[in-house]
């Protein structure tokens, strides 16, 4: 047995709106794709290493719906489970953990008040805090990539690499890095940006945005130095998608948890 075999993770992301999983391209044409708890189970059985549930509900009045969904999803899920979207305070995080999440993903709220990272980390441990960063760089170098918040609509003027470093020093356990340039395009992850962040922090980096085919995953693990890759739409192609993806990557020499 290979003695140094920490595998690369394939993370299935469920975008949830009003209690249902939706899929769409660039946040348009949202279409109902099913029940979150059921889909999470299906992805886990198919070989996903982790599940992320992202609440993209526009209205804040539906938080209770989310808590119920998290509880229902967690009850039948025995792999790591992250919940993100609308978590603004330690109390918000505590409610999501109580409902059964293992990690929370925070984004805009961490930029607005970075102490949220350490507050959650001190109470629930660093392993429970994922800081999500939406980065955009256009034609510029990875070092110039800028952090955006509010679903990618608002520029912060902060550099992705600097913010990742600060998030780590404040107690983040992982970085979920989404390329705004690639998100929804299916033309591949931003490997250069991922590699620049992965080379800066010592915590794991999860790459997101742009997955379209198996080669893209291979690239982001080898060139992009990602520890994990997240994709939503690719897994809705069918329940075999994860299994096929993992087997192909394994044959290409990427360490994978397979068979699961």
């Amino acid at each position, binding site marked *: 047995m290979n003695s140094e075999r920490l595998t690369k993770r394939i993370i299935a992301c469920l975008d949830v709106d009003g209690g249902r999983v939706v899929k769409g391209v660039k946040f348009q044409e949202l279409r109902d794709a099913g029940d979150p708890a059921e889909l999470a189970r299906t992805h886990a059985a198919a070989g996903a*290493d982790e599940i992320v549930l992202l609440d993209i509900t526009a209205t804040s009045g539906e938080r209770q719906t989310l808590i119920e969904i998290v509880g229902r999803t*967690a009850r039948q899920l025995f792999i790591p489970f992250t919940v993100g979207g609308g978590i603004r305070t330690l109390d918000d995080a505590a409610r999501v953990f*109580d409902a059964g999440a293992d990690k929370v993903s925070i984004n805009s709220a961490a930029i607005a008040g970075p102490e949220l990272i350490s507050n959650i980390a001190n109470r629930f*441990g660093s392993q429970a805090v994922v800081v999500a960063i939406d980065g955009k760089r256009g034609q510029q170098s990875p070092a110039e990539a800028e952090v955006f918040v509010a679903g990618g609509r608002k520029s912060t003027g902060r550099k992705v690499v600097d913010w990742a470093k600060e998030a780590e020093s404040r107690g983040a356990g992982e970085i979920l890095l989404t390329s705004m340039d690639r998100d929804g395009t299916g033309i591949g992850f931003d490997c250069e940006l991922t590699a620049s962040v992965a080379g800066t922090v010592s915590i*794991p980096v999860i790459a997101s945005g742009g997955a379209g085919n198996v080669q893209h995953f291979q690239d982001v693990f080898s060139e992009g130095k990602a520890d994990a890759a997240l994709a939503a739409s690719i897994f809705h192609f069918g329940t075999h998608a994860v299994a096929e993806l993992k087997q192909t990557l394994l044959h290409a020499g990427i360490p994978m948890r397979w068979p699961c």
Partner: protein
Amino acid sequence: MIAIVDYGAGNISSVKKAFEHLGASVQVTSDPVVIASAEKVVVPGVGHFNRCEFLNERLRLPVMEAVKQGKPFLGICVGMQWLFAGSTEAPGTPGAALFAGECSRFPAEVKSPHVGWNQIDVREGSRLLRGIENGAFVYYTHCYRAPLVPETVASSGYGGEFSAAVERDNVFGVQFHPEKSGDTGLMLLENFCEL
């Protein structure tokens, strides 16, 4: 009843949930009386080793009494590290010293924390790992790890080999998270329930 000891070390609802899924009767508690009346004791935990201070100050006696009586005991993650003499993460905080040696941080040449799925090299004859195949995948998230000891029943490799699971009589410890390790983890917890 299985007592899941709550000593403020992170989120333990997943451990409870996994046992309940297996049909076990569990109680999350920091009450010495409840721990004393339990048939089995689980000490979970994630986070910093200094959280074990609370365990040492308030719950060491009932937990150690349960161990002395031969009640099945399972330490998970920091709960396993506590079974050792201590950890360099919190030099002033002693462990239970049921296993020799000290937990220490991963060497600088590997990324820390060690997060994700890694394989276990299973030694034969473990009761906790009965039915679990050599090379099975389990989920880890930690910066410190326990050394290999004669009681090591499974090991993993990351910056060198470390104890993934230890076992002596009815005292068990696992560095990984069985409650998050899919079917392999559930099988381990079921083995513990059936002891």
